[in-house]
């Protein structure tokens, strides 16, 4: 077990379904000891892929259950649904809170349906860069922040968001898509090294750099801790 709700069975991740009987994106459901779990498909979720690939303790990538987290670039809610399983549980027993921000109305359409069945999930239609529009939803800083926005300037967006919303010593996860950044002609490795430099200069300790190749090509998941 990685956490109370997440279990690793062989090579597959499973999370205890907070909305029993329903599969969110066509994943398989299965019972372990009478409790229903949903399979976390790492090729559909960068967070899931990161958990599968990390060389450190897998639970270091996860927020504390029952806490408030910020998720930028929520997408269709694949990762979010599993995160919700872990953070909130059925009917939000644990009192967790996920502020899920995305720009695309198409994605929010799916997230709204998800949020109906999963209290504790707050879908927000907004720009990850424009903090003023949704920043007041977070009265306190969060200990866990995830960003997956495939647009140029991802790193700056991440640093700005962490400065404002991530507490000291909090974990910030940045999923970086190489193709969204300007091609410098030096190759992807140079780009990822540059980002790592930029992060450490901006007051982060880059604890791990997880290559997601195989699950999600040309993506790297940076696991950072805010130190200043």
């Amino acid at each position, binding site marked *: 077990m990685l956490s109370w709700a997440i279990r690793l069975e062989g090579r597959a991740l499973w999370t205890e379904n907070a909305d029993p009987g329903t599969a969110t994106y066509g994943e398989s459901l299965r019972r372990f000891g009478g409790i229903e779990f949903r399979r976390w498909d790492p090729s559909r979720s960068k967070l899931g892929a990161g958990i599968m690939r990390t060389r450190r303790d897998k639970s270091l990538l996860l927020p504390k259950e029952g806490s408030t987290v910020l998720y930028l670039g929520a997408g269709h809610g694949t990762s979010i649904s599993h995160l919700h399983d872990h953070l909130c549980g059925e009917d939000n027993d644990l009192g967790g809170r996920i502020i899920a921000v995305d720009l695309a109305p*198409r994605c929010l359409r799916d997230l*709204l349906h998800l949020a109906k069945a999963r209290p504790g999930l707050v879908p927000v*239609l907004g720009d990850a860069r424009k903090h003023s*529009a*949704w920043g007041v939803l*977070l009265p306190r800083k969060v200990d866990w922040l995830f960003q997956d926005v495939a647009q140029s300037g991802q790193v700056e967006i991440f640093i700005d968001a962490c400065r*404002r919303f991530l507490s000291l010593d909090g974990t910030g996860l940045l999923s970086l898509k190489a193709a969204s950044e300007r091609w410098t002609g030096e190759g992807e490795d140079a780009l990822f090294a540059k980002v790592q430099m930029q992060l450490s200069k901006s007051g982060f300790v880059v604890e791990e750099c997880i290559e997601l190749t195989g699950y999600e090509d040309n993506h790297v998941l940076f696991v950072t801790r805010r130190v200043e």
Partner: protein
Amino acid sequence: MWLWYDWQAAAVADDEGIIHDQAVWDGFFDQRALIERLDCIANNALTPEAKTLHERFPDAKPLIHGDGQLPDAEWPLPSHEALEAVDKAAAEMTRQGVARAAGDPDRRLEHLLRASDEMRSTYLTMEARLVEWVGLFLPEVRFGKDRTSLPKRVGESDSLEMLAKHLDVQVPDEGPSKSEWKSLREWGESTGTFKGKLDRLENAVRELTEQHLPSLSIMLGPLLAARLCVEAHGRMRLARLPAGTVQVLGAEKAFFHHLKTGADPPKHGHIFMHPWISRSPRWVRGKIARTMAAKASIAAKIDAFEGTPWTQDDVDLMDNRVEEIKAAHPKPPRRNR
């Protein structure tokens, strides 16, 4: 002095973080009022509490919660109930925002145009099959200009003999079986209905584009204007594109081939569909495309920022300019060696 505020409270504190005054709003069970306040904060405006405190402390600088300049203090943060209320309100705001997306003409235009493209390719495939199919049974028939009435004729004929009579050709020895003929007839019928659907779709595209992009429509025709808008991912983005990009929109393959290998850049993208370019001699097409793209870019800006739309007079001026270009280059340029 600092005036801190969020959607449910406001407080005044000095640089040391000692709170001098505060006002808390507890009407958050009223979702409409709460959404109004969230909107207000998103626009960087003052909430009623902040206004009250601002009158009392005019020299305090008002800043929204979370601003880096604010000192650390025991701000009156929302209670658990208030947080639950604001979560619900945020979800409701999102729902409204998603619903508003349906009012966005860019998104509507994209679906309409793509649908009409798909309908057109379906129709053309079906029509080509119909002509070949009928031609197999009636080898004497020649379809010159008048292919459009064929679907209707086939659909109305009860048998191949009847169709042959309609088309004024001899009935051949070999004919289709009863069920085969039925299939052919139904194929003709659906080809006809598809044509009707296609026309209606294109009319809908025209109607929406003429409202959404009046200047660009009158200059390039509504269908081409719609295509440029969809290809640029929206009217505002089209307006912000440089004219050079407008010129090669739709020629991405050739353009990136040019970037990669240094081959000649494309002279025109979708804009080629316009008769000013496609009906002009080869050697002036690039020049005309450049002029037109510049004008189209201006038209898109007028439409996006809701200026006074162009009229036919403006288009006539451009027509003259195109004729000038053609007159200045009557002959193809000499090749170097």
